[in-house]
């Protein structure tokens, strides 16, 4: 695990760690990539500015996978974190070691939701547009959100309240404040989203369901096949946007530059070939192909239309229910060899997280499961997560 600051031993209830996708001016920002190793930004993320203004200390940075779209951070140029034969996430490890009260992360492709769900932490990926993305390394701009992870939901709520709010510097930032609606009354349990889960996750779902019911919440089973298409469409959108966003790293102005090249084309090619990891390269090729003139309508445009259909499906669900319950991941931990047998895990395990990514709806992860709610219901979802926490204690 690579942590840049030495301030980490300073324990305080205002200590926050941000992940390496948020730009800082006093620490380098590398986005887990050799390409940006040691990159110093000229400006800092809006979320960090707001945290500091509210008395929080940014005590360090947590490593991420290369451009943070993998499972848990294993594609970092600093290497994967493995403990007891299991893949770990840097932010989650920091929280479990009590080195910060919360981490603020850029959630691109489900890493934060998975890390929280597998480590008995709580995470909120807020409604798209409620937290400024100014000062975050861009990957999949149409879906990524600055998110919060903590040991408990109340801290998530507090930190989210600080970083949320309109920002003129982000053209997608929304003007609306959160609606503090009353608690969850009816929850839809999305049965069709449980495919691929193991026994432990299945158990977590059942016990969460039971907790909700015990607290007077009505839980109904629901099947929706359209929502199951989320990650297929999301993979197309994410990889295409990623391909475009990482094009700027060409070894010319900053970042890694190859030592040997002749001419500008070779400078680009050699620098990128040397600095980019395998998953990133694969994803660039996939994304570039999706956007080609030949494939745009067949692939990319279709993914945009699927995005709309999925949003409509959720809108229909939220006409009747306050939240949708589904797994956050297929299993509570990935063994060291998981990636050998699941080479495309970043594009398959996001089956569970893509619905929230592609729609921009808020999601809260806790104990193996997640709740997705309608836009601006973030605080309500965290309240529901608190029920689960209390039950656990």
């Amino acid at each position, binding site marked *: 695990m690579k942590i840049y600051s030495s301030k980490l031993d300073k324990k305080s209830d205002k200590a926050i760690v941000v992940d390496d996708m948020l730009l800082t001016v006093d620490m380098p920002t590398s986005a887990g990539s050799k390409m940006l190793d040691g990159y110093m930004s000229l400006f800092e993320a809006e979320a960090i500015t707001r945290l500091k203004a509210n008395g929080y200390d940014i005590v360090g940075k947590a490593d991420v996978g290369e451009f943070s779209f993998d499972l848990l951070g294993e594609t970092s140029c600093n290497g994967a974190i493995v403990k007891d034969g299991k893949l770990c996430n840097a932010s989650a490890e920091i929280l479990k070691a009590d080195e910060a009260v919360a981490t603020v992360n850029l959630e691109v492709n489900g890493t934060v939701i998975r890390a929280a769900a597998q480590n008995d932490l709580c995470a909120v990926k807020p409604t798209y547009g409620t937290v400024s993305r100014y000062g975050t390394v861009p990957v999949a701009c149409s879906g990524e959100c600055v998110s919060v992870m903590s040991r408990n939901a109340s801290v998530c709520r507090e930190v989210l309240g600080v970083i949320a709010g309109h920002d003129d510097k982000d053209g997608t930032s929304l003007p609306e404040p959160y609606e503090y609606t009353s608690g969850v009354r009816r929850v839809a349990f999305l049965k069709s989203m449980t495919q691929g889960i193991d026994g432990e996750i299945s158990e977590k779902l059942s016990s969460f369901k039971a907790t909700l019911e015990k607290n007077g919440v009505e839980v109904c089973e629901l099947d929706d096949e359209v929502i199951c298409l989320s990650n297929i469409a999301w993979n197309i959108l994410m990889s295409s946007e990623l391909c475009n966003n990482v094009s*700027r790293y060409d070894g010319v102005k900053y970042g890694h530059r190859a030592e040997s090249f002749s001419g500008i084309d070779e400078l680009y090619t050699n620098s990128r070939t040397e600095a980019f990891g395998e998953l990133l390269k694969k994803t660039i090729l996939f994304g570039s192909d999706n956007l080609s003139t030949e494939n745009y309508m067949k692939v990319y445009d279709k993914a945009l239309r699927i995005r709309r259909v999925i949003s409509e499906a959720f809108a229909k669900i939220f006409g009747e229910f306050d939240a949708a319950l589904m797994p956050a991941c297929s299993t509570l931990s990935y063994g060291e060899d998981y990636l050998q047998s699941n080479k495309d895990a970043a594009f398959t395990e996001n089956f569970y997280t893509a619905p929230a990514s592609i729609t921009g709806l808020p999601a809260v992860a806790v104990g193996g499961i997640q709740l997705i709610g309608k836009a601006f219901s973030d605080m309500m979802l965290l309240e529901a997560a608190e029920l689960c926490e209390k039950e656990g204690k």
Partner: protein
Amino acid sequence: MKYETVIGLEVHVELATESKIFCSCSAHSYGSEPNEHVCPACCGMPGMLPVVNKRVVDFGMKAGMMLNCHINRVTTFDKKSYYYPDLPAAYQTTQWFAPVAVNGLVEIETSKGKKNVRIKQIHMEEDAGKLVHDIREDTTHVDFNRTSVPLIEIVSQPDLSSAEEVEVYLDRLKNLLRFAKVAECEMAHGTMRCDVNLSVRPEGSDKYGVRTEMKNMNSIEAIKRAIEYETARHIDAIENGTEVLVQETRRWDDIKGKSYAMRTKETAGDYRYFPDPNVMPVVIDDEWFDSIQDSLPEFPEVKRDRYINEYGLSEYDADQITKSIALCECFEEAYSVCKSAKDAANWIISEIMSILNKRMITYDMLKINAHALGELILLVSDGKVGRANAKKVLSDMFDDLTIDPLKYCEANGYIVSNDTGLVEKVVAEAIANDPKAVADYKGGKEKALMSIYGKCMKELKGNCDPQMLRTILIDAINKI
């Protein structure tokens, strides 16, 4: 066989907004140091997000309305990807799917009469940077001042058929956009650039020939030469089979007077357009639309007709003045003060335009206190200041916009004297000094009178009412 040339133009025009399209850097870098007007956003650093400059959309809409376009009420921005060192984020934000304006019409008038040129679309986009080659160091530097400066690209249908039509069309675009004050359109400043798409076909044919494109043309003379050359090359290929025409992008070398096919590597490639997720669709509501429509200027030909019908100007004078919005504004302001359209027009056409020509300043760059010009014209027509002195004052007024003509004339001794005694004295001396001229005049040589008159006026430093001087002079000669 007779052939016709089919030409479509893509004209890039820099919009005259204060700041760039997606950041607050100044958009005016002409004459600045390299990389003086840059920030992390227009340098493509990670983490900056584009925020659309509303003025750019205002100007884009206005341009669309000036060219009779339909305005798309929901207009979107898209990313166009390609690698080039002058493009810092390796994509250009442009409009591909829903440009701000479509389906326009521009009327042009050439020696062959009037003609309509259809406008396919006008889209807004950001400019790229500039590469500066240093021959001594054998390196290339990048200047990002121009990066993200707002442009519109005006795409015409292939409705033009000669170099003359292209020239008139470009002039027309320039005039309309300048009337609307959205752009400078000065090719020499790089605020107007042009891609020429050209093909040749037998006259009367309804099929298009093979089309070639010449990019980034930046002088009207070069464009005209390139069109002549390409037309001849195409006809030669068709008639004599000198080469096989292929659809391609060519580079015009104005020094050699030839076009060259560009390396395929420079032109091949797929721009992979897709909607920019960081820029929300721009929705133009009725209020916004109406406010832009209300701000449109009077069109040049409407002004011209009004000058003829309302102010009684000659067609020639009206044409001259409506060549430029700056001349029109100067005329209207001066007229409002001096109340003589004829005088105001005269001063502008014979004096102001010639000073501009002499100083090699384009009419649109005219900067003068037009209110003061009106006052100066009044001083002359009221006989308070002589014309020759007034011209000197006008010339000084170009350099000092604060000049008050009356005070300035007083201070410089330009005020006409009504002292008949002084004039009579000067006249008497002049006559006495030049008996030959007097004799010539009496012998019927009208010109001789002008010579004495000129000497008197000079002696009086121009400060004499011409009519008064003439009367006193003739009286004095007749008395001899």
